[in-house]
């Protein structure tokens, strides 16, 4: 059966966990920046995918975290297409706002792992939502 859920990510920890998932297709881009992932998500929305998670999920602002994971679906939409575009464009604009003139910190390996953990935890808080869990189970 064609998978109707897509995990779009530059987070290796998320990729590791969802590489072989029965219901979720993985789209992993190791070289992508935080912003690149959002742009990819926007392009997918224009091609008919629906935004399932908030693109600015996590309280970490874009200049504070190198990883981003977005969950998309070809099935039921949570929002209108217009609203989805609004949310993803606002997320891209927020990256530009917070990174303007800023140099990304030199993260330590430990900090990078922590970022991966937090990003994964945030996306899993959506995947563990009872409503989403049932939708995935029922291929809706």
């Amino acid at each position, binding site marked *: 059966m064609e998978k109707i859920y897509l995990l779009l990510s530059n987070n290796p920890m998320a990729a590791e966990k969802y590489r072989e998932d029965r219901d979720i297709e993985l789209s992993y881009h190791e070289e992508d920046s935080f912003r690149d992932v959002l742009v990819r998500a926007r392009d997918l929305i224009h091609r008919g995918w629906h935004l399932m*998670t908030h693109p600015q*999920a996590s309280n970490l602002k874009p200049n504070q975290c190198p990883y981003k994971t977005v969950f998309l679906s070809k099935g039921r939409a949570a929002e209108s297409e217009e609203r989805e575009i609004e949310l993803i464009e606002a997320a891209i604009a927020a990256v530009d706002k917070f990174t303007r003139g800023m140099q990304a910190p*030199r993260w330590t390996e430990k900090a990078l792992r922590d970022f991966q*953990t937090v990003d994964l935890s945030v996306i899993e808080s959506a995947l563990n939502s009872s409503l989403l869990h049932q939708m995935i189970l029922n291929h809706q």
Partner: protein
Amino acid sequence: MKLELGKIHIHDVKFGEKTEIRSGVLYVNADELRELVLRDDRLIDCHVELAHPGESVRITPVKDVIEPRLKVEGPGVVFPGVMGKVTEVGHGKTYCMDGLCVVTVGKIVGFQEGVIDMSGPAAEYCPFSKTQNVCVVIEPKEGLETHVYESAGRMAGLSAATYLAKALKDQTPDETEVFETKPLLEQAAQYPDLPRVGYIHMLQSQGLLHDTYYYGVDAKQIVPTIMYPEEIFDGAIISGNCVAPCDKVTTYHHLHNPVIEDLFRQHGKTVNFMGVILTNENVFLMDKERHSDMTSKLCEYLGLEGVLLTEEGYGNPDTDLMMNCKKTTQRGTKVVIITDEFPGRDGKSYSLADVCKEADTMISCGNGNVVIHFPAMDRLIGTQDFIEMQIGGWVGCKNEDGSFDAEIQIIIASTIANGFNKLCARGY
């Protein structure tokens, strides 16, 4: 529900042989406290340090801030479901150490957590620069998973506060406040001529380090519900959130929720304060729709004419904020938003990550992107190793003498989005 909150004013804290309060001074037996915290085998070290207002002291990275409180009459314990049975709280009598805080310090993850300066320019922005602080500095076991360590850190602070609170037992309050909320129909009838006003309290609930607990339950798992405001004063809500120091709602802020405190001050005078609607800030967009529907439905069902609405965090929560505002307004309840702003360094961008036309009244709690200088301090509690990575810092922001420049985002509670700060616009 009726709660008497007895405040014992604490104007100094010192180490002593016995943990007790004498003449407004808290004496702390550091060995006993340390031993208690280290009963948790997830921690390998703990030391206790004291910080007083006006001292040249910097505390960082700060995980949580907690006011010691003790239940002296009525059912349950403070922090129900976490430090004792899950019994409904908010009835009877509770004592608190007014002016004293437990501050949990230690790195949770390399890049997070905030700063409290006890003097200097940054102290002007932080409510905990003016309190007597018992700092519990913890060190986790090597290799512990982040989730596990977060939990150990959270429990260390709550255990320390519960331990210190025992010293309140035979004290006589310097001041007593009484809070009372009647069941819905009686409350509506008590002040029939005043507008019925409620409070929508959005709890951070997006995942690891973004969590809040209600009677011990992760707020992600709740559906919007109604709470008597008195419950919060007994610790029904605790913080598990470690992100963005400036607008992090610490456990102290839950115990002292300024929206609830201020609504009680106006209760029976300008408003009829009906109660609190608790909701969360989830990541799945359909949960946001579902929960904002439920929140607005509760406002309508309770017959509220107006609500105050607060959030915790930036970005994702701004969408919940707007959905709650939009739907509640459309169902006939007037909404006033209270939040902080992030318009970028130049102040030229949108302050919030989302917006709706119904959001026409907002109280600002300040701009987190403002940059200030943090002079070097004589004493450091914790570590400054991560300043460049902490939220509000940047590469090259730190100088060799220990001073640094950073956005005020790095200061605990500087722009907290419920108004418990100096930057919030207030009416007098």
